[in-house]
């Protein structure tokens, strides 16, 4: 009976060690997955931000201003600087 107890408890201990190590791997993978998700979401955001940046860039604004709204670029002479 003693032998069985020794076998049982030693294997239980080893199972514990194994579980711990496996858990490290599993949580490592979970972190990796979350990381991936975060990065994908970030990438989506980034694309949206890029779109904003593109649309607010000088080329686009100039196009809209000149072609659609028929504005002209202000010559520097017409800029009045208000000193405080």
């Amino acid at each position, binding site marked *: 009976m003693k032998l*069985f107890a020794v076998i049982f408890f030693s294997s239980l201990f080893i*199972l514990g060690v*194994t*579980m*711990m*190590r*496996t858990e490290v791997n599993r949580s490592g993978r979970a972190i990796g997955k979350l990381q991936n998700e975060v990065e994908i979401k970030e990438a989506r955001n980034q694309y949206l931000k890029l779109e904003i940046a593109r649309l607010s860039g000088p080329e686009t604004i100039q196009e809209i201003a000149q072609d659609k709204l028929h504005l002209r670029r202000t010559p520097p002479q017409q800029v009045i600087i208000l000193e405080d």
Partner: protein
Amino acid sequence: MRHPDSAHYFLPIDKKIAVITFVFICFGLVFTYSSSAFDSSSYFQRQLMFDFVGVAAAIFLSQTYSKLQAKIKPIWLMYITWGFLIWVLFTKPIANVHRWINLGPFNLQPSEIAKVTLVIYMADYLSRVQGKIARNWKLLINPAVIIGITRALMFKAPDLGTPILICGVVAMMLYVAGMSWRQIFSVAPVVLAIVAWQLIFYRYRMERVLSFLHPEKQAATAGYQLTQSFLAVGSGGWFGKGFGNSELKLQYLPAAHTDFIFSIMCEEIGLFGVGIIIFLFCCLLIRGVNLARAAKNGFHSLMIFGLTLTICAQAFFNIAMAIGLLPTKGIPLPFFSYGGSSVIMTLAMIGIICNLSAESTAPKNRPTDDFAYYKNRKKYE
């Protein structure tokens, strides 16, 4: 043979076999967990359940097997087995093969049952004709027919590993039962020819066979499993990477928790550790054969011999397969590989072995009172 009052008598379980079995069960669970938990922890839980059922079955059978056997004719067991084997052909194939019958909580694998029933039938038959085989060729017809039918049914599944294993075991039983050398030499070529024909019959088997010859060349296809297995075994080295530290189990090695669990064992506990496991299998074999030799009854003796051989030959077969000595065939490592049918049937076999050896060696004048006997058993033995 059996003592009339044995119903009230606790048959002793052979201690060596019990210890070895217990070690296998405990560490089998550890490795099942280690090799499968990264993807899913349900395998471990199910294996734990199977082990409990198996141990219960083993204890139950170790006390009652002989009585149960007396009530059933072995040929009926064969009929039931064939029934299962035919049933399985009509089930939905899993991974392209008909190997499992879905029984709700778990999948039944009829070929596992066939292993046991065939041994029972053969032991029964051979014990009756023991000694006469050599002089009478006709006596070989019966086993040939039974094996032929079983093999044919398994062959349809398709399953090749188990029939070959069964053939090997039955051949040894025939040899023990007294086949002459002349008979052996005339039957062996026929059997080998059938095996060769079956190999060619299905191309995927050929591929598997070839892959084990050149695993690196076919690394992308059939040899992939074996290549990964080699990586696992080879990177283990002398003492392995430690329990739970296997790296190939991270989805790299397919079937890491079933057929290829031995590779993961090699990786985690190294040559030293698996050396102990192999040594224990050898001990099991030696102990079983010794028990068989000690049994006083021909049927018991052949039964114990056949069952021990089935377990150990299967283990060696699986190990040889995992390290690339034999073509990869779906044969699980007894006690270790995940699988309900395999675990329960293997433990049942252990139970039967214990029962038969106890029945066979039990003293005739044992008392009817269990407790009194158990207390003074040394006196009787």
